[in-house]
Protein backbone atom coordinates (compact mmCIF):
# COMPACT_ATOMS: atom_id res chain seq x y z
CA UNK A 1 0.00 0.00 0.00
CA UNK A 2 1.59 3.26 -1.16
CA UNK A 3 1.49 6.19 1.22
CA UNK A 4 1.85 9.73 -0.18
CA UNK A 5 2.25 13.00 1.71
CA UNK A 6 0.93 16.08 -0.08
CA UNK A 7 1.25 19.74 0.78
CA UNK A 8 -1.05 22.49 -0.48
CA UNK A 9 -1.04 23.99 -3.08
CA UNK A 10 -1.09 20.62 -4.86
CA UNK A 11 0.09 20.59 -8.50
CA UNK A 12 -1.77 18.55 -11.12
CA UNK A 13 1.15 16.10 -11.64
CA UNK A 14 0.99 15.14 -7.96
CA UNK A 15 -2.62 13.98 -8.13
CA UNK A 16 -2.18 12.30 -11.51
CA UNK A 17 0.33 9.96 -9.84
CA UNK A 18 -2.21 8.74 -7.29
CA UNK A 19 -4.20 5.52 -7.75
CA UNK A 20 -7.32 4.09 -6.17
CA UNK A 21 -6.43 2.40 -2.88
CA UNK A 22 -3.40 4.63 -2.20
CA UNK A 23 -3.19 6.28 1.20
CA UNK A 24 -2.49 10.02 1.43
CA UNK A 25 -1.86 12.56 4.17
CA UNK A 26 -2.41 16.26 3.53
CA UNK A 27 -0.67 19.22 5.15
CA UNK A 28 -1.40 22.87 4.51
CA UNK A 29 -4.74 24.63 4.12
CA UNK A 30 -8.06 22.96 3.35
CA UNK A 31 -11.60 24.35 2.85
CA UNK A 32 -14.74 22.73 4.20
CA UNK A 33 -17.84 22.91 2.02
CA UNK A 34 -21.04 20.91 2.20
CA UNK A 35 -24.59 21.21 0.86
CA UNK A 36 -25.37 24.92 1.21
CA UNK A 37 -21.81 26.07 0.44
CA UNK A 38 -21.75 24.03 -2.78
CA UNK A 39 -25.06 25.49 -3.81
CA UNK A 40 -23.80 29.01 -3.16
CA UNK A 41 -20.52 28.35 -5.00
CA UNK A 42 -22.51 27.22 -8.05
CA UNK A 43 -24.72 30.33 -7.83
CA UNK A 44 -21.66 32.58 -7.65
CA UNK A 45 -20.16 30.96 -10.74
CA UNK A 46 -23.44 31.15 -12.62
CA UNK A 47 -23.74 34.88 -11.90
CA UNK A 48 -20.07 35.54 -12.50
CA UNK A 49 -19.48 36.69 -8.92
CA UNK A 50 -16.11 36.62 -7.19
CA UNK A 51 -15.75 33.97 -4.45
CA UNK A 52 -14.23 35.07 -1.13
CA UNK A 53 -11.75 32.13 -1.30
CA UNK A 54 -9.51 30.50 -3.87
CA UNK A 55 -9.65 26.74 -4.40
CA UNK A 56 -7.10 26.47 -7.23
CA UNK A 57 -4.78 23.51 -6.54
CA UNK A 58 -6.63 23.23 -3.25
CA UNK A 59 -8.50 20.75 -1.11
CA UNK A 60 -12.27 20.72 -0.56
CA UNK A 61 -13.46 18.82 2.49
CA UNK A 62 -17.10 17.68 2.77
CA UNK A 63 -17.44 18.45 6.45
CA UNK A 64 -19.67 20.31 8.85
CA UNK A 65 -17.55 20.54 11.99
CA UNK A 66 -18.44 21.19 15.59
CA UNK A 67 -16.74 24.55 15.98
CA UNK A 68 -16.88 26.68 19.11
CA UNK A 69 -15.48 30.06 20.03
CA UNK A 70 -13.08 30.00 22.97
CA UNK A 71 -11.55 33.30 24.06
CA UNK A 72 -12.65 34.83 20.73
CA UNK A 73 -10.79 32.12 18.76
CA UNK A 74 -12.61 29.45 16.79
CA UNK A 75 -11.74 25.89 17.81
CA UNK A 76 -12.70 22.78 15.86
CA UNK A 77 -13.73 20.03 18.27
CA UNK A 78 -14.92 17.26 15.95
CA UNK A 79 -14.63 17.34 12.17
CA UNK A 80 -15.31 14.06 10.36
CA UNK A 81 -16.55 13.90 6.77
CA UNK A 82 -20.15 14.10 5.63
CA UNK A 83 -21.83 12.03 2.89
CA UNK A 84 -20.33 13.22 -0.40
CA UNK A 85 -23.06 12.03 -2.74
CA UNK A 86 -25.24 15.05 -1.94
CA UNK A 87 -22.55 17.25 -3.52
CA UNK A 88 -22.47 15.20 -6.73
CA UNK A 89 -24.51 17.74 -8.78
CA UNK A 90 -21.95 20.49 -7.98
CA UNK A 91 -18.54 18.85 -7.60
CA UNK A 92 -17.64 18.75 -11.29
CA UNK A 93 -18.08 22.54 -11.35
CA UNK A 94 -15.79 22.93 -8.33
CA UNK A 95 -13.16 20.80 -10.05
CA UNK A 96 -13.48 22.30 -13.53
CA UNK A 97 -14.12 25.95 -12.79
CA UNK A 98 -12.34 26.43 -9.48
CA UNK A 99 -9.45 24.03 -9.98
CA UNK A 100 -9.73 21.95 -6.82
CA UNK A 101 -7.28 19.01 -6.86
CA UNK A 102 -8.46 16.89 -3.96
CA UNK A 103 -12.02 16.39 -2.79
CA UNK A 104 -12.29 14.68 0.60
CA UNK A 105 -15.46 13.12 1.95
CA UNK A 106 -17.09 9.82 2.65
CA UNK A 107 -19.48 7.40 1.01
CA UNK A 108 -18.28 7.74 -2.57
CA UNK A 109 -19.18 9.91 -5.56
CA UNK A 110 -20.47 9.19 -9.01
CA UNK A 111 -19.96 9.55 -12.74
CA UNK A 112 -19.85 13.33 -13.22
CA UNK A 113 -17.24 13.76 -10.46
CA UNK A 114 -15.17 10.85 -11.77
CA UNK A 115 -15.30 12.31 -15.27
CA UNK A 116 -14.17 15.74 -14.01
CA UNK A 117 -11.34 14.09 -12.01
CA UNK A 118 -10.09 12.43 -15.17
CA UNK A 119 -10.38 15.47 -17.44
CA UNK A 120 -9.12 18.20 -15.16
CA UNK A 121 -6.75 16.30 -12.86
CA UNK A 122 -8.32 15.76 -9.46
CA UNK A 123 -8.94 12.89 -7.03
CA UNK A 124 -11.67 12.00 -4.57
CA UNK A 125 -10.39 10.64 -1.26
CA UNK A 126 -12.29 9.28 1.72
CA UNK A 127 -11.68 9.82 5.40
CA UNK A 128 -13.26 7.38 7.86
CA UNK A 129 -16.86 8.48 8.43
CA UNK A 130 -17.64 9.29 12.05
CA UNK A 131 -13.97 9.63 13.02
CA UNK A 132 -14.51 13.26 13.95
CA UNK A 133 -11.98 13.48 16.76
CA UNK A 134 -9.25 11.83 14.73
CA UNK A 135 -9.82 14.43 12.01
CA UNK A 136 -9.88 17.32 14.48
CA UNK A 137 -6.49 16.19 15.83
CA UNK A 138 -4.99 17.12 12.45
CA UNK A 139 -6.45 20.63 12.54
CA UNK A 140 -3.82 23.01 13.86
CA UNK A 141 -5.69 26.27 13.48
CA UNK A 142 -8.82 27.85 12.09
CA UNK A 143 -7.41 30.32 9.58
CA UNK A 144 -10.69 31.90 8.54
CA UNK A 145 -14.40 31.26 8.11
CA UNK A 146 -16.71 32.37 5.30
CA UNK A 147 -20.48 32.36 4.95
CA UNK A 148 -21.27 31.93 8.64
CA UNK A 149 -24.79 33.09 7.79
CA UNK A 150 -25.35 29.50 6.58
CA UNK A 151 -24.86 28.26 10.17
CA UNK A 152 -21.68 26.73 11.61
CA UNK A 153 -22.12 23.29 10.00
CA UNK A 154 -22.62 24.78 6.54
CA UNK A 155 -20.05 27.59 6.62
CA UNK A 156 -16.76 27.38 4.71
CA UNK A 157 -14.02 26.81 7.28
CA UNK A 158 -10.45 27.47 6.23
CA UNK A 159 -8.37 25.05 8.25
CA UNK A 160 -4.64 24.66 8.62
CA UNK A 161 -3.94 20.92 8.87
CA UNK A 162 -0.93 18.78 9.51
CA UNK A 163 -0.88 15.19 8.25
CA UNK A 164 -4.62 15.09 7.74
CA UNK A 165 -5.37 11.42 7.13
CA UNK A 166 -5.10 8.56 6.48
CA UNK A 167 -7.19 9.32 3.40
CA UNK A 168 -7.89 6.56 0.88
CA UNK A 169 -8.07 7.43 -2.80
CA UNK A 170 -11.52 6.30 -3.97
CA UNK A 171 -11.59 7.99 -7.42
CA UNK A 172 -8.37 8.58 -9.36
CA UNK A 173 -7.48 10.39 -12.58
CA UNK A 174 -7.75 7.20 -14.68
CA UNK A 175 -11.52 7.05 -14.10
CA UNK A 176 -11.41 4.25 -11.57
CA UNK A 177 -14.07 4.46 -8.84
CA UNK A 178 -13.43 2.13 -5.88
CA UNK A 179 -16.76 2.32 -4.04
CA UNK A 180 -18.82 2.11 -7.22
CA UNK A 181 -16.95 -1.06 -8.16
CA UNK A 182 -17.54 -2.59 -4.73
CA UNK A 183 -21.27 -1.78 -4.97
CA UNK A 184 -21.69 -3.11 -8.50
CA UNK A 185 -20.16 -6.43 -7.49
CA UNK A 186 -22.46 -6.41 -4.43
CA UNK A 187 -25.44 -5.97 -6.78
CA UNK A 188 -24.37 -9.07 -8.74
CA UNK A 189 -23.83 -11.00 -5.53
CA UNK A 190 -27.36 -10.07 -4.41
CA UNK A 191 -28.96 -12.01 -7.23
CA UNK A 192 -26.80 -15.06 -6.50
CA UNK A 193 -27.81 -14.92 -2.84
CA UNK A 194 -31.51 -14.53 -3.60
CA UNK A 195 -31.64 -17.30 -6.19
CA UNK A 196 -29.85 -19.76 -3.88
CA UNK A 197 -33.05 -21.20 -2.50
Amino acid at each position, binding site marked *: MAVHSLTTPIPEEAVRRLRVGNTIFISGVIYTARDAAHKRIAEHIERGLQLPFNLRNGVVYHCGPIAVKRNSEWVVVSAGPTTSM*RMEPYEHIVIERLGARVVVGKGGMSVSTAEACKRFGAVYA*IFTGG*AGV*LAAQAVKRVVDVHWLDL*GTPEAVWVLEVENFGPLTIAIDTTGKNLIEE*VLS*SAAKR*KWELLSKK
Partner: protein
Amino acid sequence: MVRAFVEAIKRASTHLPPDVKQALRKAYEIETSPAAKAQLEAILRNIELAERLGVPLCQDTGVVTFYVRVGLGFPGVAHIEKALVEAVREATSTVPLRPNSVDPVTGLNTGDNTGRYVPIIIWDAVDPDSSTLEVTVALRGGGSEYTTVFSVLPPWKGLEGVKELVLEAVIRAGAMPCPPTVIGVGIGGTAEYSMLLAKKAATIRRIGTRHPNPVVAELEEELLEMVNELGVGAMGVGGKVTALALHIDYAHRHPAAYPIAIAFQCWALRRATARVHPSGDYVIEQ
Protein backbone atom coordinates in the same frame (compact mmCIF):
# COMPACT_ATOMS: atom_id res chain seq x y z
CA MET B 1 -33.76 16.22 35.89
CA VAL B 2 -32.02 18.65 33.53
CA ARG B 3 -28.62 17.67 34.91
CA ALA B 4 -29.38 13.97 34.40
CA PHE B 5 -30.43 14.55 30.80
CA VAL B 6 -27.42 16.73 29.99
CA GLU B 7 -25.15 14.04 31.41
CA ALA B 8 -26.87 11.35 29.35
CA ILE B 9 -26.39 13.43 26.18
CA LYS B 10 -22.75 14.05 27.04
CA ARG B 11 -22.15 10.38 27.77
CA ALA B 12 -23.85 9.24 24.55
CA SER B 13 -21.90 11.66 22.37
CA THR B 14 -18.48 10.90 23.82
CA HIS B 15 -18.60 7.18 24.77
CA LEU B 16 -20.00 4.28 22.77
CA PRO B 17 -21.95 1.63 24.71
CA PRO B 18 -19.96 -1.52 25.63
CA ASP B 19 -21.92 -3.80 23.26
CA VAL B 20 -21.05 -1.54 20.30
CA LYS B 21 -17.37 -1.28 21.19
CA GLN B 22 -17.17 -5.05 21.55
CA ALA B 23 -18.84 -5.60 18.16
CA LEU B 24 -16.43 -3.17 16.48
CA ARG B 25 -13.40 -4.85 18.05
CA LYS B 26 -14.69 -8.21 16.84
CA ALA B 27 -15.21 -6.77 13.34
CA TYR B 28 -11.59 -5.58 13.35
CA GLU B 29 -10.40 -9.06 14.34
CA ILE B 30 -12.32 -10.96 11.68
CA GLU B 31 -11.86 -8.47 8.81
CA THR B 32 -9.31 -9.66 6.24
CA SER B 33 -9.42 -6.86 3.65
CA PRO B 34 -6.52 -4.49 4.43
CA ALA B 35 -8.47 -1.43 3.24
CA ALA B 36 -11.46 -2.23 5.46
CA LYS B 37 -9.19 -3.12 8.37
CA ALA B 38 -7.56 0.30 8.06
CA GLN B 39 -11.00 1.94 8.30
CA LEU B 40 -11.85 -0.12 11.39
CA GLU B 41 -8.52 0.77 12.94
CA ALA B 42 -9.29 4.47 12.47
CA ILE B 43 -12.71 3.89 14.05
CA LEU B 44 -11.22 2.20 17.12
CA ARG B 45 -8.57 4.92 17.48
CA ASN B 46 -11.25 7.58 17.20
CA ILE B 47 -13.36 5.95 19.92
CA GLU B 48 -10.38 5.92 22.27
CA LEU B 49 -9.47 9.54 21.53
CA ALA B 50 -13.03 10.77 22.07
CA GLU B 51 -13.23 9.01 25.43
CA ARG B 52 -9.88 10.36 26.53
CA LEU B 53 -10.60 13.94 25.48
CA GLY B 54 -14.27 13.83 26.47
CA VAL B 55 -15.46 15.28 23.15
CA PRO B 56 -18.13 14.09 20.67
CA LEU B 57 -16.69 11.16 18.74
CA CYS B 58 -18.53 12.22 15.59
CA GLN B 59 -19.23 15.82 14.65
CA ASP B 60 -22.73 14.89 13.53
CA THR B 61 -24.59 14.66 16.81
CA GLY B 62 -27.88 14.23 14.98
CA VAL B 63 -31.37 15.46 15.75
CA VAL B 64 -31.51 14.69 19.47
CA THR B 65 -34.12 12.00 20.09
CA PHE B 66 -35.47 10.86 23.45
CA TYR B 67 -37.34 7.66 24.24
CA VAL B 68 -39.20 8.22 27.49
CA ARG B 69 -40.45 5.42 29.73
CA VAL B 70 -42.13 6.77 32.77
CA GLY B 71 -43.37 5.08 35.90
CA LEU B 72 -46.86 6.05 36.99
CA GLY B 73 -45.49 6.83 40.45
CA PHE B 74 -42.85 9.26 39.21
CA PRO B 75 -43.42 12.75 40.57
CA GLY B 76 -42.85 15.62 38.20
CA VAL B 77 -44.18 14.09 34.99
CA ALA B 78 -45.42 17.54 34.05
CA HIS B 79 -41.85 18.91 33.96
CA ILE B 80 -40.21 16.21 31.83
CA GLU B 81 -40.76 17.81 28.45
CA LYS B 82 -39.54 21.23 29.49
CA ALA B 83 -36.49 19.70 31.16
CA LEU B 84 -35.60 17.74 28.02
CA VAL B 85 -35.70 20.87 25.85
CA GLU B 86 -33.65 22.81 28.38
CA ALA B 87 -31.13 19.96 28.57
CA VAL B 88 -30.68 20.00 24.80
CA ARG B 89 -30.01 23.76 24.82
CA GLU B 90 -27.51 23.39 27.64
CA ALA B 91 -25.79 20.34 26.10
CA THR B 92 -25.47 22.15 22.76
CA SER B 93 -23.19 24.72 24.33
CA THR B 94 -21.48 22.65 27.03
CA VAL B 95 -20.77 19.25 25.40
CA PRO B 96 -20.79 20.82 22.67
CA LEU B 97 -23.25 19.43 20.13
CA ARG B 98 -23.42 20.60 16.53
CA PRO B 99 -26.48 22.76 15.92
CA ASN B 100 -28.59 20.54 13.65
CA SER B 101 -32.05 22.08 13.78
CA VAL B 102 -32.91 23.77 10.49
CA ASP B 103 -36.27 25.34 9.64
CA PRO B 104 -37.36 23.60 6.42
CA VAL B 105 -39.33 26.65 5.34
CA THR B 106 -36.79 29.43 5.86
CA GLY B 107 -33.59 27.34 5.83
CA LEU B 108 -32.43 28.97 9.06
CA ASN B 109 -30.60 27.02 11.75
CA THR B 110 -31.90 27.81 15.24
CA GLY B 111 -28.38 27.26 16.60
CA ASP B 112 -29.46 25.40 19.74
CA ASN B 113 -30.85 22.09 18.45
CA THR B 114 -34.41 22.99 19.34
CA GLY B 115 -37.29 23.93 17.09
CA ARG B 116 -40.75 22.83 16.04
CA TYR B 117 -41.21 19.29 17.50
CA VAL B 118 -37.46 19.18 18.13
CA PRO B 119 -35.84 17.61 20.15
CA ILE B 120 -37.90 14.60 19.24
CA ILE B 121 -39.60 13.14 22.30
CA ILE B 122 -41.13 9.69 21.97
CA TRP B 123 -43.36 8.70 24.88
CA ASP B 124 -42.45 5.06 24.68
CA ALA B 125 -44.18 3.48 27.66
CA VAL B 126 -45.97 4.09 30.91
CA ASP B 127 -45.16 1.55 33.60
CA PRO B 128 -47.95 1.31 36.18
CA ASP B 129 -45.72 -0.51 38.69
CA SER B 130 -42.76 1.83 38.68
CA SER B 131 -41.93 5.20 40.13
CA THR B 132 -38.79 5.88 38.15
CA LEU B 133 -38.24 7.76 34.92
CA GLU B 134 -36.10 6.23 32.20
CA VAL B 135 -34.97 8.45 29.33
CA THR B 136 -32.83 7.01 26.56
CA VAL B 137 -31.14 9.54 24.31
CA ALA B 138 -30.16 8.57 20.77
CA LEU B 139 -27.90 10.64 18.53
CA ARG B 140 -28.04 9.46 14.91
CA GLY B 141 -26.13 11.18 12.16
CA GLY B 142 -27.59 12.42 8.90
CA GLY B 143 -25.91 9.71 6.82
CA SER B 144 -27.92 7.06 8.63
CA GLU B 145 -31.13 9.02 8.22
CA TYR B 146 -30.55 9.73 4.54
CA THR B 147 -30.58 6.05 3.60
CA THR B 148 -33.75 5.01 5.46
CA VAL B 149 -36.17 2.91 3.40
CA PHE B 150 -39.91 2.49 3.71
CA SER B 151 -42.12 0.41 1.46
CA VAL B 152 -45.48 -1.31 1.54
CA LEU B 153 -45.14 -4.73 -0.04
CA PRO B 154 -48.01 -6.74 -1.45
CA PRO B 155 -48.71 -9.34 1.25
CA TRP B 156 -48.03 -12.35 -1.01
CA LYS B 157 -44.36 -11.41 -1.12
CA GLY B 158 -44.04 -12.01 2.62
CA LEU B 159 -40.66 -12.61 4.22
CA GLU B 160 -38.99 -13.33 0.86
CA GLY B 161 -39.95 -9.80 -0.15
CA VAL B 162 -38.39 -8.52 3.06
CA LYS B 163 -35.08 -10.22 2.26
CA GLU B 164 -34.95 -8.75 -1.21
CA LEU B 165 -35.79 -5.26 0.02
CA VAL B 166 -33.14 -5.40 2.76
CA LEU B 167 -30.38 -6.46 0.37
CA GLU B 168 -31.43 -3.78 -2.11
CA ALA B 169 -31.45 -1.16 0.63
CA VAL B 170 -27.95 -2.16 1.77
CA ILE B 171 -26.60 -1.77 -1.76
CA ARG B 172 -28.40 1.50 -2.37
CA ALA B 173 -27.18 2.85 0.98
CA GLY B 174 -23.67 1.75 0.05
CA ALA B 175 -21.09 3.59 2.09
CA MET B 176 -23.39 6.49 2.99
CA PRO B 177 -24.60 5.33 6.42
CA CYS B 178 -21.00 4.74 7.59
CA PRO B 179 -20.79 0.93 7.66
CA PRO B 180 -20.34 -1.32 9.52
CA THR B 181 -23.91 -0.49 10.51
CA VAL B 182 -26.61 -1.97 12.68
CA ILE B 183 -29.63 -2.59 10.47
CA GLY B 184 -33.09 -2.30 11.98
CA VAL B 185 -36.04 -3.83 10.16
CA GLY B 186 -39.61 -3.05 11.19
CA ILE B 187 -42.34 -5.23 9.74
CA GLY B 188 -46.10 -4.77 9.92
CA GLY B 189 -48.19 -2.38 11.94
CA THR B 190 -48.81 0.86 10.06
CA ALA B 191 -46.42 3.08 8.12
CA GLU B 192 -45.30 5.14 11.09
CA TYR B 193 -45.24 2.21 13.47
CA SER B 194 -43.06 0.00 11.27
CA MET B 195 -40.58 2.88 11.11
CA LEU B 196 -40.55 3.29 14.87
CA LEU B 197 -39.93 -0.46 15.24
CA ALA B 198 -37.08 -0.26 12.72
CA LYS B 199 -35.48 2.71 14.48
CA LYS B 200 -35.70 1.09 17.88
CA ALA B 201 -34.36 -2.19 16.51
CA ALA B 202 -31.37 -0.39 15.00
CA THR B 203 -30.48 1.95 17.82
CA ILE B 204 -32.05 0.93 21.11
CA ARG B 205 -31.80 -2.87 21.12
CA ARG B 206 -28.45 -4.12 22.38
CA ILE B 207 -26.14 -5.93 19.98
CA GLY B 208 -25.90 -9.61 20.92
CA THR B 209 -29.49 -9.94 22.15
CA ARG B 210 -31.76 -12.50 20.54
CA HIS B 211 -35.32 -11.88 19.34
CA PRO B 212 -37.80 -13.78 21.57
CA ASN B 213 -39.53 -15.29 18.52
CA PRO B 214 -37.21 -18.09 17.33
CA VAL B 215 -38.34 -17.81 13.71
CA VAL B 216 -37.50 -14.10 13.69
CA ALA B 217 -34.21 -14.74 15.49
CA GLU B 218 -33.24 -17.21 12.78
CA LEU B 219 -34.26 -14.82 10.02
CA GLU B 220 -32.07 -12.15 11.61
CA GLU B 221 -29.07 -14.45 11.51
CA GLU B 222 -29.74 -15.54 7.94
CA LEU B 223 -30.21 -11.98 6.70
CA LEU B 224 -27.12 -10.69 8.51
CA GLU B 225 -25.07 -13.36 6.82
CA MET B 226 -26.52 -12.45 3.42
CA VAL B 227 -25.84 -8.74 4.00
CA ASN B 228 -22.23 -9.44 4.94
CA GLU B 229 -21.79 -11.66 1.88
CA LEU B 230 -22.45 -8.61 -0.28
CA GLY B 231 -18.90 -7.53 0.54
CA VAL B 232 -19.51 -3.78 0.94
CA GLY B 233 -17.27 -3.61 4.02
CA ALA B 234 -16.35 -0.77 6.36
CA MET B 235 -16.92 2.60 4.60
CA GLY B 236 -17.66 0.78 1.34
CA VAL B 237 -14.06 -0.09 0.53
CA GLY B 238 -14.90 -3.79 0.24
CA GLY B 239 -14.73 -6.27 3.09
CA LYS B 240 -16.38 -8.94 5.20
CA VAL B 241 -18.18 -6.82 7.77
CA THR B 242 -20.89 -4.58 6.30
CA ALA B 243 -23.23 -4.86 9.30
CA LEU B 244 -22.42 -5.52 12.96
CA ALA B 245 -25.95 -6.78 13.61
CA LEU B 246 -29.36 -7.00 12.02
CA HIS B 247 -32.38 -6.61 14.28
CA ILE B 248 -35.97 -7.25 13.25
CA ASP B 249 -39.13 -6.37 15.10
CA TYR B 250 -42.71 -6.76 13.98
CA ALA B 251 -46.29 -5.81 14.72
CA HIS B 252 -49.40 -7.51 13.40
CA ARG B 253 -50.49 -5.97 10.11
CA HIS B 254 -53.59 -5.11 8.10
CA PRO B 255 -54.62 -8.02 5.82
CA ALA B 256 -54.07 -5.90 2.72
CA ALA B 257 -50.69 -4.40 3.53
CA TYR B 258 -47.20 -5.50 4.47
CA PRO B 259 -45.38 -2.35 5.60
CA ILE B 260 -41.64 -2.66 5.95
CA ALA B 261 -39.17 -0.07 7.21
CA ILE B 262 -35.40 -0.34 7.13
CA ALA B 263 -33.27 1.94 9.29
CA PHE B 264 -29.50 2.09 9.21
CA GLN B 265 -27.55 2.97 12.29
CA CYS B 266 -23.95 4.04 11.63
CA TRP B 267 -21.14 2.34 13.58
CA ALA B 268 -21.19 5.39 15.88
CA LEU B 269 -24.24 4.03 17.70
CA ARG B 270 -24.71 6.63 20.38
CA ARG B 271 -27.20 5.91 23.13
CA ALA B 272 -27.32 6.43 26.89
CA THR B 273 -30.06 6.12 29.44
CA ALA B 274 -30.75 8.36 32.42
CA ARG B 275 -32.68 6.58 35.17
CA VAL B 276 -34.16 9.16 37.51
CA HIS B 277 -35.55 8.13 40.90
CA PRO B 278 -38.38 9.95 42.73
CA SER B 279 -35.80 11.49 45.09
CA GLY B 280 -34.06 13.13 42.14
CA ASP B 281 -31.05 10.81 42.34
CA TYR B 282 -30.09 9.49 38.96
CA VAL B 283 -27.79 7.05 37.23
CA ILE B 284 -26.51 7.08 33.64
CA GLU B 285 -26.39 3.69 31.98
CA GLN B 286 -25.17 2.48 28.60
